[in-house]
């Protein structure tokens, strides 16, 4: 068995984890490894961790709870150490780095904003705005276009749709950047046009929600905008620890 690590907090953190279980079925016992003024929340884990929904939920629930009580540095899901001693060793080796990260993230949360365009609505908008496209479309229809022409025309439409989606995405980012301490743009998964994470002071969450409402209204019918969070700062803990920063 090895040790699954969920998050790192300062040892002054309340660590109110009752009622929560770690990964595995039926959930594993959660415990704390303390070292160098830090505490890592861990549980025993099988050798091989997989992204089962219940395990990802357990991971997320632990981090949500820890984040609600103070500052937490979230581990990537499924981070497994050979033993508790190895975890303590890592806390010792990286104490300076983790402490400065905790300080930097104190009182801040991550909010994630995703925009997903309705393809047909964007297409209408592009057609309405671009007379050239409409003309080409009519010409192609009249002349009975071959595959080459249709391909070229389709590409120009696709470019216009992409440009419009990007313009809207940039508009959302621009509007939210003002609220953010830091900004992280994520991969466009699941067909979204924007996957934006922002690090905000906890007391600004309300302002961001109002801003997102305004943006939703402005892009109503064109794009669906979703706001997730407050989340623990997944996107702002810098994946790896620089070896030197011990």
């Amino acid at each position, binding site marked *: 068995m090895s040790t699954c690590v969920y998050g790192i907090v300062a040892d002054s953190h309340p660590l109110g984890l009752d009622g929560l279980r770690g990964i595995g079925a039926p959930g594993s016992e959660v415990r704390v490894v303390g070292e160098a003024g830090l505490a890592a929340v861990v549980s025993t884990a099988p050798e091989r961790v*997989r*992204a*089962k*929904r219940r395990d990802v939920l357990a991971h997320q629930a632990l981090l949500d709870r820890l984040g609600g009580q103070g500052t937490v540095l979230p581990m990537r899901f499924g981070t497994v150490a050979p033993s508790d001693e190895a975890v303590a060793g890592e806390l010792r080796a990286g104490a300076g780095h983790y402490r400065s990260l905790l300080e930097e993230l104190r009182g801040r949360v991550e909010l994630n904003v995703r925009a997903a365009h309705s393809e047909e609505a964007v297409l209408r908008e592009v057609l309405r705005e671009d007379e050239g496209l409409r003309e080409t479309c009519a010409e192609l229809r009249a002349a009975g276009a071959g*595959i080459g022409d249709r391909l070229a025309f389709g590409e120009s439409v696709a470019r216009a749709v992409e440009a419009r989606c990007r313009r809207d995405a940039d508009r959302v980012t621009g509007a939210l950047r003002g609220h953010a301490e830091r900004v992280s743009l994520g991969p466009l*998964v*699941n067909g979204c046009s924007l996957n934006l994470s922002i690090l905000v002071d906890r007391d600004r969450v309300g302002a961001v929600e109002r801003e997102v409402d305004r943006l939703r209204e402005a892009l109503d019918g064109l794009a669906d905008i979703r706001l997730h969070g407050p989340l623990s700062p997944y996107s702002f803990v810098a994946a790896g620890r620089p070896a030197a920063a011990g």
Partner: protein
Amino acid sequence: MGLVGMILTAPFAPLRAVPWVARQVLDAAEREFYDPAVIRAELAELWARYDEGEIDEAGFDRAEDELLARLEEAEAIRGGPPD
């Protein structure tokens, strides 16, 4: 899928090209099948349908295991875990 779409809309493809085309289609289909981003999207979709109550626990568990197994195979095909 990219190539499949093209095949259907290109009636003039000469017959002798079929084996080559067929192999391309299989390649494309297989690549899509093992594309981690596609599997990830399917995983998220599966969760969503489970949250919506469209699948029961047992059905969900089986489908999830199958997707996760495919994700691990995809990783084997692409040369081992990231670290």
